[in-house]
């Protein structure tokens, strides 16, 4: 039976819209405090060098400088993302490993003075040979970047499910293809920023432009030796994250250390160039896949090898190298899968997580292969995908459970929405059409550090006067709209209009929430929020039922008023009590039914403050093999896209002319926000396919560290997008909801590649699709056809 909702599924405008439209929304760099100092970080100009000495004495003597910190002051506690792989220290002591590695930091009365002080710090380096290419880094005799990691191997993954060689031997058709991408940048418009404000009791509040207040709090406290209770992390409005803001940055550590050293607030921000130097965005992947099928296109086996260029430190890289294999387990039926992944260290900024973590390029190659196979076998690519599609309840060979899966509906929606059948094979010269699918987790099944912690807690407090509801959550609204989603879930659960709900989020004071990564906020924080709301509602209804002498199970709220499934209610005595407290007030409730404010007030008079709490951690998830923690999730979102391109056969210029996108997000909490995630994902995928590449020179320096030279899509690059929201009822999601923020990027790159292939016959094995590269591939295809 279709459930009816009052708030969920609507197009409610986001709660923070007016503040953001008027400039009132406060981002980290907008904060200012009396006596605030400005900090800056000294970064290595060498890609690989021994640090022989650091002399900050002249900097300390510069008037206006309030503190200088080096490893001598802050120590060398190792940190990183995954505790098993902590390999960074705040400041280099023995070696620097990339251009940008941190040496020291300064706080001064203004930024100019801080920068002047940096120039006075004398560092003696002994340059070492450096290596920038992952294959060279893995070769014998390459310079060793970390003594602990022989051969510059950061991580190796070897997994086999089923029997790949045997299955390939049985295949009617086997082919091998390769694809490599380039390092990408997050490209968020707000650079990282942190402001640390000490108080007189030895506590610090750290305002940080982060996706993960919880992990920032833990890491900064650990590295600086603070008790957790001494450090509160608050996330103001954040100008986009997409992954690279999902770990504590040197700004977080340094501003806190400098605030403690000086007793003053300290603000630090990255310049745009420093965002590129900090990195932590999409890895470079080099994939090779061998896929075997039967003659009618049934998938039999996949053999997959990947090499990742990780940069100088591990960061999220362990998860990345696992995701890059595990996310190919679905959404097609594939019984046999072998994966060998290897992440190499190089003397470049570390790579980390970015939208579609680890899976984007692997997905791109696999979906490319499906098209090439379909062509070889003379099967329509849409047909081929439908024929291999998993169904609800299927479990992948690597134990991912498709507890809901609207994949088939998504393909059919984009097939019909794009008019595929009228276009495929019938387009004019230079025009092409391509399809691809993808799927992604709705929240990582496990926290980053080993723990039985709840992944999300929510406290919901009803105002004592009954008139409003406040949701307190440590979750991270970073632009994706999670505050609005939580408010909608709270309103729906309580049975009140959305206007009654306020959300305060992003502070570690509000509880535990692992933050905005792995597309987890809607499902996980949404669960906790729903449970908190239901608890508060239960308390109110208990009081009201006692007063009315009815069974609380017969009562509920709908659209802000009390409804009864049982006998008619005599609310007059309760209303009289409420009215007595509000003598002289205009606009008192006078409808037939008791309104929420009256009921909540009556409950307060009986019980004191009405508070509900909720918490969520995922149920036991499948997978006992090594690495099973990466990829398992309570639910999976999935999507399909059809892209149409025009390729200029003379210049190689590719233009994406339209995208038809369908995404199964479970139950859509907010349709506008779902579409927004779909459209934003397409733009990021389009940028990665066509333009984006962080380039380095021979000395390991980023040569295009600006938004002028690093080309993210402009409004002129973006085609018309038709976004179709496919809904399923995910049993593990609150109200049936699951992810949309990352799965939506998965099909974009391969759909573009498939469309370019359709337009030109050119097989392209390297991204981005620059005109030169495309033209070269077109020429090769033409030559091969002669």
């Amino acid at each position: 039976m279709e459930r009816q909702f009052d708030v969920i599924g609507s197009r409610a405008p986001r709660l923070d819209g007016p503040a953001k439209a008027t400039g009132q929304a406060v981002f980290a760099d907008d904060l200012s405090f009396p006596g605030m100092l400005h900090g800056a970080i000294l970064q290595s100009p060498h890609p690989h060098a021994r640090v022989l000495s650091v002399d900050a004495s002249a900097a300390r003597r510069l008037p206006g400088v309030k503190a200088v910190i080096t490893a001598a002051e802050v120590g060398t506690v190792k940190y990183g993302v995954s505790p098993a792989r902590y390999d960074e220290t705040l400041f280099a002591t023995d070696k620097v490993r990339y251009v940008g590695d941190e040496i020291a930091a300064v706080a001064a009365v203004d930024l100019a003075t801080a920068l002047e002080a940096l120039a006075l710090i004398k560092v003696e380096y002994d340059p070492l040979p450096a290596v920038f290419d992952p294959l060279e880094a893995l070769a014998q005799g390459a310079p060793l970047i970390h003594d602990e990691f022989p051969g510059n191997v950061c991580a190796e993954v070897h997994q086999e499910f089923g029997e790949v060689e045997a299955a390939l031997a049985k295949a009617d058709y086997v082919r091998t293809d390769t694809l490599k991408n380039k390092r990408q940048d997050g490209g968020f418009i707000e650079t990282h920023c942190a402001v640390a404000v000490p108080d007189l009791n030895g506590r610090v509040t750290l305002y940080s432009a982060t996706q993960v207040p919880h992990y920032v709090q833990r890491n900064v406290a650990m590295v600086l030796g603070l008790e957790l209770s001494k450090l509160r992390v608050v996330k103001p409005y954040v100008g986009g994250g997409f992954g690279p803001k999902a770990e504590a940055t040197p700004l977080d550590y340094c501003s806190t250390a400098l605030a403690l050293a000086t007793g003053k607030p300290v603000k630090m921000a990255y310049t745009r160039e420093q965002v590129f130097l900090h990195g932590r965005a999409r890895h470079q992947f080099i994939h090779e896949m061998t896929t075997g099928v039967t003659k009618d296109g049934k998938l039999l086996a996949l053999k997959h090898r990947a090499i990742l260029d990780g940069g100088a430190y591990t960061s999220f890289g362990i998860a990345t190298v696992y995701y890059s294999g595990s996310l190919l387990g679905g959404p097609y039926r594939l019984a046999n899968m072998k994966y060998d992944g290897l992440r190499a260290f190089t003397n470049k900024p570390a790579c980390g997580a970015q939208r579609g973590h680890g899976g984007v390029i692997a997905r791109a190659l696999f979906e490319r292969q499906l098209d090439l196979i379909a062509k070889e076998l003379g099967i329509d690519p849409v047909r081929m995908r439908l024929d291999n599609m998993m169904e609800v309840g299927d479990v992948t060979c690597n134990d991912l459970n498709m507890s809901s899966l609207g994949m088939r509906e998504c393909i059919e929606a984009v097939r019909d929405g794009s008019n595929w059948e009228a276009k495929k094979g019938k387009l004019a010269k230079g025009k092409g059409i391509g399809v691809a699918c993808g799927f992604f987790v709705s929240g990582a099944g496990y926290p980053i550090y080993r723990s039985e912690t709840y992944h999300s807690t929510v406290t919901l407090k009803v105002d004592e006067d009954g008139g409003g509801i406040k949701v307190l959550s440590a979750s991270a609204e970073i632009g994706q709209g999670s505050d609005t989603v939580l408010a909608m879930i709270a309103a729906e659960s309580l049975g009140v209009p959305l206007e009654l709900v306020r959300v305060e989020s992003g502070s570690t004071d509000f509880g535990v929430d692992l933050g905005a990564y792995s597309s987890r906020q809607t499902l996980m924080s949404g669960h906790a929020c729903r449970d908190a709301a239901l608890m508060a509602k239960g308390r109110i209804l208990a009081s009201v039922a006692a007063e009315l002498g009815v069974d609380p199970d017969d009562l509920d709220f709908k659209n802000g008023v009390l409804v009864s499934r049982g006998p008619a209610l005599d609310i007059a005595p309760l209303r009289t009590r409420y009215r007595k407290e509000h003598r002289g007030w205009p606009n008192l409730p006078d409808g037939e039914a008791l309104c929420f404010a009256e009921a909540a007030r009556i409950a307060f008079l009986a019980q004191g403050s009405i508070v509900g709490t909720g918490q969520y951690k995922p149920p036991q998830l499948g997978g006992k093999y090594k690495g099973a923690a990466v990829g398992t999730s309570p639910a999976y979102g999935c999507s399909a896209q059809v892209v149409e391109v025009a390729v200029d056969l003379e210049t190689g210029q590719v233009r994406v002319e339209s995208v038809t996108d369908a995404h199964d997000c479970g139950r859509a909490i907010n349709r506008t926000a779902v579409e927004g995630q779909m459209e934003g994902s397409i733009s990021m995928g389009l940028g990665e396919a066509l333009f984006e590449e962080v380039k380095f020179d021979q000395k390991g320096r980023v040569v295009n560290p600006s938004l002028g030279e690093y080309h993210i899509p402009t409004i002129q690059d973006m085609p018309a997008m038709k976004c179709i929201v496919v809904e399923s009822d995910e049993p593990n999601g609150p109200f049936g909801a699951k992810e949309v923020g990352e799965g939506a990027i998965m099909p974009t790159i391969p759909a573009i590649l498939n469309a370019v292939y359709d337009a030109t016959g050119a097989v392209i094995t390297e991204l981005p699709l620059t005109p030169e590269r495309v033209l070269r591939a077109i020429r090769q295809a033409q030559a091969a056809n002669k």
Partner: protein
Amino acid sequence: MNKLALTLNVNGQDHDLLCEPSRTLAQALREDLGLTGTKVGCGVGDCGACTVLVDGQTVNSCLMLAVQAAGKAIVTIEGLADGPKLHPIQAAFVEQGAIQCGFCSPGMILSAKALLDANPAPSEPEIRQGLSGNLCRCTGYQKIVQAVDAAARTLRGERTVG
């Protein structure tokens, strides 16, 4: 360094300030006048987050010196709403879902205002042209284009907001 005395007319109000000749308009607005609605995403003219209107024209305030703006009429995002009532462009951005993280929004909205002041009925390509100096990483721009179109219709009296 010698400081200059200058008067900036921002959102219809004169502000006297003393600032270094090298101070950018963005710095003066954000740091001296506390008008932090103007955002800085790059500081070098690439992103458009710092867009303000100077004598009705869009300007990257990170590239203009404060002294160059003296004596001119500057409009920032804080100057658009009429008290609590959003300007129709702002209202359309909220209603159409054209705002996600919101970091590009002040600049986008001001570019849209300059466009609609000059061309009350822009075509879609004209809207895209008018906003081509403003980068947004979150939205893919589609809802921004829709919002500007909706705002244009509101301003022409063809629709009322939501």
